[in-house]
């Protein structure tokens, strides 16, 4: 399946990552939620954990300390309190 989701991950001091993805898994306060294309619109609070993004053949991981995720019209916005970008 083509990457149908538009993903933006933003932190207070700037955009962390943005691009197309086929699947996003986010650590919501009520457990991990997996988001695929055409999911129903959702606004969920995140707890500390790892946001996993599958973009093409790449699997990306973003450890976050909290925040929220919003999903509508196949656009995902993950608003993170702090993202540690130590994967590089």
């Amino acid at each position: 399946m083509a990457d149908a989701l538009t993903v933006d991950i933003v932190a207070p001091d700037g955009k962390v990552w943005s691009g197309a993805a086929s699947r996003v898994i986010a650590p919501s306060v009520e457990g991990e939620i997996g988001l695929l294309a055409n999911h129903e619109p959702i606004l969920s609070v995140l707890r500390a954990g790892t946001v996993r993004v599958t973009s093409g053949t790449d699997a990306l991981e973003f450890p976050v300390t909290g925040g929220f995720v919003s999903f509508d019209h196949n656009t995902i916005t993950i608003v993170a309190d702090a993202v540690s970008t130590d994967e590089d």
Partner: protein
Amino acid sequence: MGGQQRVYRQRIRSTQSLKKIFRAMELIAASRIGKARDRVTAAAPYAHAITRAISAVAVHSKVDHPLTNERTDTDRVAVLVISADRGMAGAYSANALREAERLTERLKNEGKSVVSYALGRRAASYYSFRKREVASSWQGESDSPQFGTAQEIARALYKAYVSDGEDAISEVHVVYTHFTSMVSQEARVIRLLPLEVVEGVAEPDEDVEPLYDFEPGAEEVLDSLLPRYIESRIYACMLLSAASELANRQRAMNTAVSNAEDIIRQYTRLANSARQAEITQEISEIVSGADALAAS
């Protein structure tokens, strides 16, 4: 006579070294402005995302949150002034403080008592010099604000806003300096609490807003969104003020450099005429000495 010349030369030398310092500070400020403006732009997506999310909640559920309700049980209001840590920025801090004074005056006329919060050493010392009480002050990073500090400030104000005790406050105003362009910055006042979410609400979308599913619930989502919204507003104010401070500093230092050049020019003239006077006097001494010898 020789002493006169030496004094002038000394002054020229010290003014020259001051001029070098002013020039260096001007260049430092100029190079930091770009970075400060980038940070203002970088913070925008976060603020935008939060505002959108809040308006989504507001559309789909009845917003009834302590942060959006007016408090009537206390007449204490908070004023947060954002100023610089050091001077050398022209009238930057003075303008912000004057705006804060005007606001304080207005609030007092409305029968409210004002609690001051100071960000930046200039604001803190302004209040302490006048022996006025400051509820809290933060210093040390006025030209490169950190989000952590914004969070700290937001939490302090938030705590006072929701508390029931003696130190409760009913409104929060922020005085900051808006960065419009490199040549135009102005001190502005915004009312932070109670909240009015303005931007982003009127979104003329072709279809109605999607029906959101809130997890765990609309209330809880709002509970976690609103404090973040305040943090991001305060952070945005701090970033704009930092950019304004640097722009003001660059301008002030530029003026200082040209003043130093004026002074150097003036002293060079005085030194030259002192040297000329000395030569003239020596010649007249020699000539009159020779005349006296010839006459005898």
